């Protein structure tokens, strides 16, 4: 489903974010990426849908190569949904309009069709009553659930979560994680960058531990948390737990 081959990424200020990074993700797999901050996790996600350009290497998603062709890039973005740490809802639009927009502009749906999908998704993330509200009127957890619904409205084949719960108050983390767990159960292919180890253990098929732009260790969640091999991993886990 996703093939990442030897990608390199350095920022203009000279900081290397990703070093010869390779990763393959199967269909319906939930890959959880953990690691200390500054290890290139968010950059990796942004490279996957072309929000950041890679310097070297190749990314192929569902058979489409992510290259300099505009068409391919847009095609990949249609198939890859993304949820951000800071929600990034469009503040000048209601919840309904936020979710309708891409369906109508990109998928060329009619307003009625888009609205139908939107209401279905809002029901799914349990926030249908807020369809007419503006983002600023919602709590953080509600905003993030709307953001997930917005990404799902494009019927993506892959979902990327970039620290989706990091900006939330503790009591709101649960409601967002529940939505994510349900998605995983339904068989969505997901790459999740998170600090929520509970989620990683419960929903992650595979855990990838990153440090300094490289994969240090990866494995099934059971093996990773119970029998880590590398010293760096043990050190990281001991700091968390």
């Amino acid at each position: 489903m996703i093939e990442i081959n030897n990608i390199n990424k350095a920022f203009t200020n000279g900081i290397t974010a990703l070093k010869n990074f390779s990763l393959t993700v199967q269909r319906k797999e939930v890959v959880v990426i953990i690691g200390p901050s500054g290890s290139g996790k968010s950059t990796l996600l942004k490279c996957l849908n072309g929000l950041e350009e890679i310097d070297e290497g190749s990314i192929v998603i569902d058979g489409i190569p992510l290259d300099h062709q505009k068409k391919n890039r847009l095609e990949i973005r249609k198939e890859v949904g993304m949820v951000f740490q800071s929600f990034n809802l469009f503040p000048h639009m209601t919840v309904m309009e936020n979710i309708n927009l891409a369906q109508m502009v990109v998928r060329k749906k009619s307003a009625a069709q888009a609205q139908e999908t939107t209401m279905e998704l809002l029901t799914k993330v349990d926030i249908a009553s807020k369809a007419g509200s503006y983002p600023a009127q919602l709590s953080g957890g509600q905003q993030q659930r709307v953001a997930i619904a917005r990404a799902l409205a494009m019927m993506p084949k892959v979902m990327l979560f970039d620290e989706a719960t990091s900006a939330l108050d503790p009591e709101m983390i649960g409601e967002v994680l529940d939505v994510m767990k349900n998605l995983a159960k339904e068989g969505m292919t997901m790459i999740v960058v998170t600090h929520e180890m509970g989620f990683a253990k419960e929903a992650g098929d595979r855990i990838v531990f990153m440090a300094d732009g490289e994969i240090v260790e990866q494995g099934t969640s059971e093996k990773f948390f119970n029998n880590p091999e590398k010293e760096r991993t043990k050190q990281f886990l001991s700091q968390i737990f």
Partner: protein
Amino acid sequence: MTCIRSFLRGSLLISQKKRVNKLNLESVSRCLTSFIIKQDKGCIINRKRYISIVFAWIKYLFTVLLLLCLINKGAESLGYNWQWYRIPKYLFSFDNGIFQAGPLLKGLLVTFQITSISLVLCIIFGFITAMMRLSDSFAARTLARAYLEIIRNTPLLIQIFFIYFVISPVIEIEAFTSAVLALSLFEGAYASEIFRAGIVSIDKNQWDASYSLGISKFHTYRYIVIPQAFERVLPPLTGQIVSLIKDSALVSTIAIYDLTMQGRAIISKTFLTFEVWFTVALIYLVITASASMVANMLEKRMKYENG
């Protein structure tokens, strides 16, 4: 020594006097406060505001009075003979009960025509230039930059003359068109900087969110960036509209009978210098002030609900 001593004593006296003044002011304000409190049943938040508003008005009226006195005195010393009663007929008159616009109102109409057409063009020029400056094309950026630098670093009066005396004979346009062109090119340059700042001020996260949904650059501008930028841009843009109205007075130099030119014509006939310029200035003031008010209302209405 004695000199210094007397000086010190003097300053002491003054400071004491000041203290007395201060005391007086305080007692006055206390009086006012107690009065307002009685009215307001002890609303503490409003008390201070009332006092500051009352004082602001007193200061304001005092300043206006002072100015009027000064003007009157100046006119007296010049031996100026005020003839306000002659002004209304230059604004409008009733011929057999039918409304007739006087030269000043006719001039105002021309000013309106020029500014409204220039405003539309100025926004178009400004928007195109802003998009050119933000585009990926080097040629477009350079072109926009050159236009901005030329317009912003030469006087508007020279630009008007240049277009009227140099360009208009070549491409055969009238004085009115030259005036509109000069004004809209000039204000467009400034408007473009306002637009650009508004667009740049939109958070990068909004772009990321839009792109991640597969929305193209064009549609991101159209649905996400420009609607949000427009709201931020509205207040400074109003300032630009006000300058456009004021700058339009300069077109009177190329024989366009706008408000300013009509004023000059009346003065040369009647020598009512003070009255006419006061009237003309007041008319400009009313227009620009109402433009600001309309913009304020728009701004309030457009503010999306912020929780």
